[in-house]
């Protein structure tokens, strides 16, 4: 058991270690032996140990409301005050664990995968930089620093997607990722500003208290929530800003595993889950539908893609859609639960795919086949991850995905919104189909490209060890229990659909109060338990409405909740096996002529292959409008601005010419005239001054004579 201070300093050390790794490998990597990869791996290992320690400490404590917060004033400008602070609670502990584990394993994996790369040390430096930024997001206790680190992971993502920047496609992909994220981050920033303007604070728990007290409410709260969610839409690649994630696969595969599957893209989900009380019911509705649609369209696109990494990218999109959908249904616990298990099996899938790509030097599945004998470890771990993502019972993904579908169904049954659940369950059936399509096309059957097959071999230990660890985690990460009762319940407060649903029937501040209810209220517990938990609770959302779940419609909703979970579980198991069976039938037994289906459904195939034409749509609308606007600006620049500038120039030249003429003839004339007159006079008078005294005497005498004459005459 660690003291609060020990937890705080450990958390800061976890944040500092990757930064140290980044600085050391960035500046001294080239000069160090082995280009300094051992620094990155070693420091991340250390961070991982600290994360495990914090994790165990919170697990032993078993109090989801316990939190450790430390901060100091960073900027104080009178009305504008920003604290820099660290917040560690159960959610943070989980995220620290997830980020450090995946980052450490990816570091280790990269030793083998990136071996011999020209910018080997730079790769490790960027990995360290990314991990630092990601941990910053996780540990921050206020929106300002969340945003700062949010942008830093964006930068790290940009740098790593474009790691092979000599490839044109990679250079384009990272620009696309960066610009698409800008759109989302713009909304995110607006949301933050609205909250700051309305409440004057950026600290999470102070904000919760303000929402609870009704300082910010109604449509302002709804729009601010949508703004914050836009950050999630950008970073977690939700429809309609999902277009950057498939292209981001241009980055090295370990990067895809770490950033674009396990951690960074989950940052949006983490953010919404962490800030759940800030999202009103209206924003929740937006979140729910965006997530469900993303889950569905991404899963269907994955059906037709042949690039192994692209299929996995769409699969990631689909799973992120699930998490967001759960957030929308108010179930941030299962969302985080899925984030955790997904990080394990999706990182494993990407690393396994990386292992295959490393062996055959191709990303196209038609180039592969029959690899299971050549790469046994990769094969076994990949299948484990596939089973996990498919939602097969007793694998980690089953419990989290089932929780999400259950909550969505419960929400739907109470509110009458069934579409998200239908989209979700369809995606749940499609997911095992395309995942096993990968397995069958890659590892089974006959080699399609004999030359590549002969070249293929199992990867070295630095690549297989991470695979095996992640494989083990993909099986046991859920602890064979749902989030409500398993280890997860020791870290996050259980979720309660009835309380969330009740919000929809309330208005104004009352609704806001119930938002907190959902977080601190134990729906399954007895009232006595609930109140005991409240007494211990450190959350400002200490809760007058604890009894909500137990009075009135609460019981009825409870049953709905239970029924929904049972039904959802049955349906998702059925969907998983149906998908696997169909995939086996189509891609292993080859009983179905895929080409014929493709020909018959050519319209559908075109739409899916074209990824629902989002890119084309943007190209036709936004890009075109942007280019048109740019052309207009250019024309304006060329004709109006340049015209003014050139006209001014011409006018100036004319005026200068006139001024020049005046200068030359009038001013110079006057000056020269004076000089000439003086010179002439000088020439004349010079003759009088002969230097002979006698001459002067003549002048003097003549003058006297003249004076005398004048005197006489006058």
């Amino acid at each position: 058991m660690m003291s609060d201070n020990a937890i705080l300093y450990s958390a800061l050390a976890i944040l500092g270690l990757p930064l140290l790794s980044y600085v050391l490998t960035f500046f001294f990597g080239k000069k160090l032996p082995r280009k300094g990869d051992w620094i990155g791996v070693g420091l991340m290992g250390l961070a991982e140990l600290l994360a495990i320690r914090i994790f165990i400490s919170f697990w032993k404590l078993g109090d989801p409301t316990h939190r450790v917060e430390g901060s100091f004033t960073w900027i104080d400008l009178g009305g504008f005050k920003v604290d820099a602070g660290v917040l560690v609670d159960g959610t943070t502990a989980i995220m620290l664990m997830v980020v450090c584990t995946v980052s450490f394993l990816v570091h280790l994996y990269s030793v083998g995968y990136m071996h011999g790369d020209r910018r080997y040390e730079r790769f490790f430096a960027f990995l360290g930089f990314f991990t630092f930024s990601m941990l910053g997001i996780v540990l921050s206790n206020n929106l300002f620093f969340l945003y700062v680190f949010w942008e830093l992971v964006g930068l790290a993502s940009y740098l790593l997607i474009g790691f092979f920047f000599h490839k044109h496609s990679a250079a384009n992909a990272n620009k696309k990722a960066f610009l698409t994220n800008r759109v989302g981050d713009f909304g995110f920033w607006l949301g933050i500003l609205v909250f700051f303007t309305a409440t004057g604070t950026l600290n999470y728990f102070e904000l919760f208290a303000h929402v609870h007290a009704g300082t910010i409410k109604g449509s302002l709260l709804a729009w601010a929530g949508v703004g914050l969610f836009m950050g999630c839409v950008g970073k977690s690649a939700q429809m309609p800003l999902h277009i950057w994630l498939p292209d981001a696969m241009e980055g090295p595969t370990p990067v895809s595993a770490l950033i674009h599957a396990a951690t960074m893209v989950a940052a949006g989900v983490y953010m919404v889950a962490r800030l759940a009380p800030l999202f009103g019911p209206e924003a929740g509705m937006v979140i729910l539908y965006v997530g469900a649609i993303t889950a569905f369209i991404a899963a269907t696109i994955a059906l037709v893609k042949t690039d192994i990494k692209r299929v996995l990218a769409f699969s990631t999109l689909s799973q992120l859609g699930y998490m967001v959908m759960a957030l929308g249904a108010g179930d941030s616990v299962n969302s985080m639960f899925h984030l955790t298990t997904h990080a394990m099996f999706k990182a494993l899938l990407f690393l396994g795919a990386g292992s295959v790509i490393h062996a055959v030097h191709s990303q196209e599945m038609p180039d592969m086949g029959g690899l299971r004998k050549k790469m046994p470890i990769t094969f076994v771990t990949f299948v484990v991850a596939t089973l996990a993502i498919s939602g097969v019972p007793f694998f980690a993904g089953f419990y989290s995905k089932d929780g999400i579908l259950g909550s969505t169904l419960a929400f739907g049954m109470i509110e009458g919104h069934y579409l998200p659940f239908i989209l979700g369950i369809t995606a749940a059936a499609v997911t095992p189909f395309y995942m096993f399509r990968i397995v069958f096309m890659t590892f089974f059957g006959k080699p399609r490209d004999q030359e590549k097959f002969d070249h293929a071999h199992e990867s070295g230990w630095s690549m297989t060890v991470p695979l095996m660890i992640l494989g083990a985690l993909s099986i046991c990460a859920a602890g064979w229990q749902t989030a409500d009762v398993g280890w997860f319940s020791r870290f996050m407060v259980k979720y309660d659909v009835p309380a969330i649903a009740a919000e929809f029937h309330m208005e104004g501040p009352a609704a806001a109060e119930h938002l907190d209810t959902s977080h601190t209220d134990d729906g399954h517990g007895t009232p006595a338990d609930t109140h005991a938990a409240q007494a211990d609770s450190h959350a400002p959302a200490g809760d007058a409405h604890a009894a909500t779940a137990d009075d009135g419609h609460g019981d009825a909703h409870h049953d709905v909740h239970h029924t929904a979970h049972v039904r959802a579980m049955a349906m998702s198991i059925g969907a998983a096996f149906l998908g696997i069976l169909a995939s086996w039938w189509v891609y292993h037994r080859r009983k179905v002529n895929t080409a014929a289906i493709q020909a018959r459904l050519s319209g559908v195939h075109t739409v899916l292959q074209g990824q629902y034409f989002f890119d084309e749509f943007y190209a036709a609308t936004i890009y075109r409008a942007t280019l048109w606007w740019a052309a207009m600006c250019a024309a304006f620049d060329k004709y109006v601005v340049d015209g003014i500038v050139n006209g001014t120039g011409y006018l100036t030249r004319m005026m200068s010419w006139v001024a020049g003429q005046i200068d030359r003839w009038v001013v110079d004339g006057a000056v020269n005239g004076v000089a000439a007159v003086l010179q002439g006079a000088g020439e004349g008078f010079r003759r009088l001054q002969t230097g002979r005294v006698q001459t002067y005497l003549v002048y003097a005498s003549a003058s006297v004579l003249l004076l005398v004459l004048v005197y006489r005459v006058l």
Partner: protein
Amino acid sequence: MNVGLPHFLTVSAALFSLGLFAVMSRRNAVGILMGVELMLNAASINFVAFSRYVQHGIDGQIMSAFIIVLAAAEAAVALAIVLAMFRNFGTVNADTVQSLKQ
């Protein structure tokens, strides 16, 4: 014929004019000096004449005695200068000695 003041003044004026003319026109430094002497003497005559006809006393005579002394001193100094000039330039022609002019 009665000799009066006008006669003295006329002689004096003539003498002065001659002296002035000599100073103005002579090139020779010695000639110039002689012109100066003439003008001094013209002034002496005037003093004596006025002393005799206008203001009775000895002021005029004292003055002309001063003038004679002064003329002697002047001649001595000026001749010394002319001598130095001759030594330096090998001439007593006032026109050709003009090194200050250049």
